[in-house]
């Protein structure tokens, strides 16, 4: 005679094993895809964002070189404008997606060029941090704290994303890599 505790045990084991197998299969599929991806494949994953708006938000507080602006016309955008220019939640999702591509770029370099491990790992960590900041922006937006708690922070994070994408473009440009035009469109 099977007691009720044993029935709960068997159900719990079945759930655990199913969940583990689904997670493992999903993750292995992603690993396989990442391993097979080439530069072109990476570019296809980039989500188009309104570069003009992102630049407007960023250049409100920094100049093209990334230095803080201290002139009278700097930091004039209000939180609502920043949010509108970023494109709301959808805009943030696009930024997040593109951060994931930057992480994949580091993955690609680590996988195929192990000699560049150090710099690729640093790049990955930086992209992860930007991703984390964007996640926090999304979280604050959902709880209605965006306007009151960190308008400046939001702008900084967007500015950092902007600068990072500029640098990625510069990397391709200087590297004379073929897909620069596609990348410029996407970022």
């Amino acid at each position, binding site marked *: 005679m099977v007691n009720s505790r044993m029935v709960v045990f068997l159900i719990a*084991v079945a759930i655990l*094993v199913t969940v583990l197998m689904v997670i493992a299969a999903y993750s292995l599929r992603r690993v396989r895809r990442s391993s097979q991806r080439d530069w072109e494949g990476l570019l296809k994953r980039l989500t188009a964002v309104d570069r003009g708006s992102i630049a407007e938000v960023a250049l409100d507080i920094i100049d093209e070189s990334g230095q803080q602006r201290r002139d009278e016309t700097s930091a004039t955008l209000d939180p609502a404008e920043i949010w509108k220019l970023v494109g709301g939640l959808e805009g943030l999702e696009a930024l997040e997606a593109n951060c994931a591509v930057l992480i994949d770029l580091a993955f690609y*370099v680590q996988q195929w060029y192990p*000699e560049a491990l150090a*710099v690729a790992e640093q790049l990955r*960590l930086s992209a992860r941090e930007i991703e984390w900041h964007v996640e926090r922006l999304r979280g604050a937006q959902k709880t209605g704290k965006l306007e009151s708690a960190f308008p400046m922070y939001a702008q900084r994070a967007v500015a950092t994303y902007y600068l990072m994408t500029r640098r990625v473009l510069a990397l391709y440009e200087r*590297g004379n890599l073929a897909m620069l035009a596609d990348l410029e469109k996407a970022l």
Partner: protein
Amino acid sequence: MHLTGLDHLFWAAGLGAHLILLFVLLTRRRFRVFPIFTAFIISNIGRTAALFSVQFYGTKTSYFYTYWSLTVLDVVLQLSVVYEMYSLTFRPLGVWARDLRRPFVWLVALSIALAAGLTWLATPHARLWMQVVVIKGSFFSATCMSELFVGMLVLAVRSGLPWKTHVARISQGFGVYSIIDVLIEAGHSYFGVGRNTQTYTMLSHLRMSAYLACVAYWVIMLWRNAPEPRKLPESLRGQLIRLQNVVDSDLERIRVRKSW
């Protein structure tokens, strides 16, 4: 303990498979990258030989103590292999990736809690308390191992850290075997060990078959070489370094506002 011809066959097959794997690890120089995994395989060979000798020439008591001492060693080495695989994946620059320290703590805590909870739920029927300990201990160990290997896979994907070829193969083998083992140990808990040990023995043979398949997979995968790394163009290297420098300096500006 009465052993059948099939038991002897599994014993011999296990010893042979481990010897072949050890041969591969030594001749292909994999032991340099995976010293703990190699130690785990050597300990399995020693364990099989020791238990076989004690079974034939020793007493019941000496078999009991040998079995338990070697089981403890086996669990410790399995956990050490998990550490080795994590270390080879998540310490790309010799230190643990800083974005993964908190997820590690959560993963280990969650794995232990889940495994402990499930083990507590199990109420295997057995004649001796020691049999209950063996069944529960094996279930706990299998559950922890399966969670840790799947967790490792998830962390690698989420963080964007590549799994090196042989690390991936060893981990996949362990992961698949551990998941099968969870089911088998759950079966042991469900059926228990009564006077008739037929079901218990059949499940044990099933577990051994799964493990032998896993060892065969390791033999093939560790014999093969990993894909050759590509040569990084000098211009790309310089630009990657510059890119990272500026990104890092950009990040400094927003890090100061992390406190809100």
